[in-house]
């Protein structure tokens, strides 16, 4: 009746996995904005081969980040107590950002 018998570990009052999932989604959305801006920059400047290639690479890296985020979200949803993010995962997500910035430098120049 009082509910004290239920395992307290079953309930996470902070909804931590939920919030982490949404943080991944927000980050992917920010990446979408950057990819769209990259495409706009490429098409605006007369669409030289280099800028089209750079914009296409931006989209590829955005897709890579989407994949990483989706994989992580799947892991978060799979277990009641999800495992922590692994360093290669974090490094891969960071590499996508770095690649976006490098493609951006080629687009701007």
């Amino acid at each position: 009746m009082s509910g004290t018998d239920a395992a307290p570990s079953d309930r996470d009052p902070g909804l931590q996995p939920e919030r982490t999932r949404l943080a991944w989604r927000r980050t992917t959305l920010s990446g979408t904005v950057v990819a769209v801006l990259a495409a706009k920059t490429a098409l605006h400047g007369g669409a030289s081969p280099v800028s089209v290639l750079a914009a296409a690479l931006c989209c590829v890296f955005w897709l890579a980040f989407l994949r990483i985020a989706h994989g992580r979200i799947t892991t978060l949803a799979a277990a009641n107590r999800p495992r922590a993010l692994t360093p290669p995962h974090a490094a891969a997500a960071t590499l996508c950002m770095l690649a976006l910035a490098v493609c951006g430098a080629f687009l701007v120049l």
Partner: protein
Amino acid sequence: MIDFVRNVRLWFVPEEVRQEGGTPDYRFSLANERTFLAWLRTALALIGGGFAVDQFLPDLRWGWRVGLALALLAAGVLCSLRAVNHWARCERAMRRGEDLPVSRFPALLSLVVAVVAVVMVVVVLVGWEG
């Protein structure tokens, strides 16, 4: 610098991290992960700002426009590198039960953003006159 190289190695060898200390409460790890993602979003905003300068200030002289855009892109690169480095350091500190690492980076970044904002105001005013 040597610390940094050691940290970079840890990004790619997760087993070494897992051997140290004990596994912290998963909620702390998830909070650390969200902080990492928030820094990645900051980096993305800086990168997007670089594109925006290039696209939406077409009246600027080429040098100023490209210089500002590249500065913002470089800030985005630094920010994302720092994000993963700080995440790894926090994760290790939690496993070892140490204090979380402190950092000058947030203060530095806010100063840089403030300077870029002032430069943009000046450049836009001067650029539209000339």
